[in-house]
């Protein structure tokens, strides 16, 4: 490469509103990031595919940020024993390309292919999807359905939180402000995996309903975008596991979800389709 040439701002500024009010530092290592998150109350930023949309719209709340994109230790997908370990900075593209995911958790690859388009898939991260805690997060029903475990670290602790305990309400989780998600772990999944996302169009769509299911000895099924958090439909699962009819299961499902009307869809539509997709899951995965 040729030697450096300094290019100063030679035209009128055209930066976004909030930029000069933002304070962004870069973490060089996980230890660095954890310290800064604790001591300086900085919000981590990785793929920025949610946070910078907020910045563009002027709704970005935090002004103290720490860029964790460069922490390579948080990348990578590996298998330890029989557990799939997905680093927090795994992008959707990483998940789509991973042979481990293809073999052990193919419905994560299915979900990843339906997130945004290639550009978003190249930057959006699994850790970010989990931390963002949107009820519409596309990977969340996948992790809920397989009873994944979220690995959290702080400066002097590490804990593993089962996915069922991770979310406590709309956009809230048990994560402490001094913690970072470092990985999500998935034990071996027995049974057929099934995934379906209904968006506002065929690509680049926010989900109106998203469903992930596993037909093992007992069925596991999770729904997104039909409640303030991702929902594991446990009562519905129990009905099916004990040999109940699909009609009984459908009726039970109605009690477990709480869909709303919003800019993208209606509660009524979400109800109908949730039930239809339950039936479809059941018939598709029947041996």
């Amino acid at each position, binding site marked *: 490469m040729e030697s450096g040439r300094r290019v100063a701002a030679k035209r*009128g500024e055209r930066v976004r*509103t909030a930029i000069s*009010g933002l304070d962004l530092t870069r973490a060089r290592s996980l230890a660095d990031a954890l310290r800064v998150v604790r001591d300086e109350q900085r919000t981590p930023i990785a793929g920025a595919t949610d946070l910078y949309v907020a910045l563009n719209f002027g709704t970005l709340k935090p002004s103290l940020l720490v860029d964790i994109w460069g922490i390579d230790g948080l990348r990578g997908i590996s298998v330890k024993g029989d557990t799939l370990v997905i680093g927090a900075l795994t992008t959707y593209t990483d998940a789509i390309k991973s042979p481990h995911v293809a073999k052990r958790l193919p419905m994560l690859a299915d979900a990843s292919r339906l997130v945004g388009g290639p550009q978003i898939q190249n930057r959006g991260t699994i850790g970010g999807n989990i931390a963002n805690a949107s009820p519409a997060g596309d990977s969340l029903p996948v992790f809920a359905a397989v009873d994944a475990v979220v690995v959290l670290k702080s400066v002097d602790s590490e804990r593993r939180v089962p996915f069922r305990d991770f979310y406590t309400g709309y956009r809230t989780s048990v994560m402490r402000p001094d913690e970072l998600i470092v990985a999500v772990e998935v034990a071996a999944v027995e049974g057929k995996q099934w995934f379906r996302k*209904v968006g*506002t*169009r065929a690509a*680049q769509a926010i989900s109106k309903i998203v469903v992930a299911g596993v037909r093992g000895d007992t069925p596991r099924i999770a729904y997104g975008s039909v409640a303030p958090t991702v929902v594991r439909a446990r009562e519905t699962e129990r009905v099916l596991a004990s040999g109940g009819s699909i009609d009984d299961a459908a009726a039970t499902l109605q009690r477990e979800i709480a869909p709303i009307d919003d*800019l993208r869809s209606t509660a009524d*539509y979400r109800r109908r389709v949730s039930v*239809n997709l339950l039936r479809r899951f059941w018939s598709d995965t029947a041996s």
Partner: protein
Amino acid sequence: MPSVGQNVSRKDGIGKATGRAQYADDLVFPGMLHGRTIRSTIPHGRIRSTTISIHSGFRTPDHDDASQRGSLARHGFTFVSHRDIPGRNVVALIEADQPFLAERDVLHQAEPIFLLAHENVQTLNALTIEITYDTLEPVFDPEKSEGVLKRIDIVKGDVEFALARADVIVEGTYRTGHQEHVYIEPNGVIAVPEEDGGIAVYGSVQCPFYVIKALKSLLGDDAKVRVIQTETGGGFGGKEEYPSILAGHAVLLARKSGRPVKMVYDRVEDMIATTKRHPSIVKHRTGVMRDGRIVAMDVDVILDGGAYVTLSPVVLSRGCIHAAGAYRCENTRIVGRAMFTNTPPNGAFRGFGAPQTEFAVEVHMDRIAEQLGIDPVELRRMNALRPGDQTATGQTLRDDTSALIVLDEAVKRTDFHRKRAEYKGTNKAIGLSLFYHGSGFTGSGERHLNSKARLDLTEHGVRIAVGSTEIGQGTRTMHAQIVADTLQIPYESVEVAQPDTSKVADSGPTVASRTCMVVGKILEECALDMRAKLGSMTPGQYYAKHGSFSVERKYEPPDWIEWDDHTYRGDAYATFAWGCDVAELEIDPDTYEIKPIKLTAVQEFGRPIHPALAKGQIEGGTAQGLGYALIERVVMKDGAMANAQLTNYVIPTTLDTPAMDVVMLENRYPDGPFGAKGLGELPMDGPAPAVVNALRHYGLDVRELPATPELLATCDSL
């Protein structure tokens, strides 16, 4: 080697593909400021008071206007209100009702009230302006509004008499919502004070001379002002009239500050504040005989115009003229009303009223066919307009009428009847629509426009100097082909001037599918004149001997056109283009999602000047029509667009757009350049009814757009 009919290399050069083409936001000028619009946040009311404050400790005394302004100026702000307007606070268009800046009355959300400029965008945006209002009750429902913006009556024969004698009467009400243009480049202009004391406006515009007219209203008739069109990233009608307001705003700021001012909207502001397609409610009452002959058509059209007149009377006009569809009927009554509501004014969008009314009539036709037990193709064939038939306005159609030609081709090419039978009872469906679109301005419109074109001889050839704009549809190229072949010189020796109102002729607006048929025709006449004057010399030879000369001509509509503006009878358009679309869909029974599998578009528009560009118009317009049919939904809350982000107002991606089979048929229009008619808008009229008719085939009684899965889930089954 003639260029017309060939896919010659385009006059745009390679700049669009290299990133060198200059769009409005790419331009910078020394000392440039950025501008911002302060808009109302209520749909209806009166302004009571204004407080201005800026973050980081800067405050002004409340209600103290003069002190506020003094402080603002010391901090580098330029502040503009209606008091800074030297001329008239009226956006000159059809009526004189819309202000550039609200004075006291606010009639819609996002109505512009104040303007600000500052060198630094962040500082500019840090200023908070709080406005208190006395609110008034808003009207949002056009059917409940009492404000009639415009009424049109088109009457032929005796519709009540004929209805009484019909075997069957079929009634129906059909609705369409707003549609947002989503040109990928938002609106943007830069106003630049010039050394001679005038002002230049560079901008993303379709109609630079419309902007001049509006600026002269704003500044005074003898104002020195010129408009230069920058490379424009899509228009579709959304940059026909709106840029006049934006230009006026930038000019006011530039005048006051003495500096160039750039105003480029971001996507959210553009979607909330600028024009959209008019929502419609169309009611049909149709008398038919048992054999399928239509004997009476009674149509009621309501359009939601928004808060100001803008172009609604013309949208209503075109919508009503097309409301009876591509069919002949002796007894027709079309009553149309555009209504005021307290919403941002709706405006021009490709099709301009016809997509709404042709949606209604085409869905209605399939319902008629169903009620009579007649094949929908046969019903159309029986009633389609033929040469010699009269339209609803009493226009006798000529040989360039192609309804049956396009219908038969589409039916044959898609194997329509076999698929119709085969798909019945499956998750697949197939539907059809027959439609037409008048080329050029309605009735006496072209005469009133008085459009001109000019050719200048140059050292190497000739330069085209017209006000028509290239907005992606291929204006530069197509005009150059017409001129080159008429002059019998190489296509390469024709150049096209960038539209600068101080340098080119006023060719009228780049709208109404007129840029080829009308302006291309004037250019053809200019070229014939020039050819005669050149004699046997080439342009180069003549130039070397005598220097340059120019030929300017104005448009002469065909002399057989007769139109009465008062009775709305006569020859509405010099010619029509014709289309027949067939939509094949797959419906997901679990989610009601619709996957278009294939769209066949058979379109007749005289003849293509540049086949690849023409095909591009058809494919692009068809994709927009599919979006209109299925996924584009504007959600209004308190009179403003609530889903003003591309995340929530969705247009088709690659994966939403089906394979398209485009068939371009020719039926030359004798008074068009090389036989060409207009094309740009025709493709928009067909896809939505074809899709909805396919849904009817599947078994869903859909009567409104967009046909979203949420709508289908609650639709009555047939």
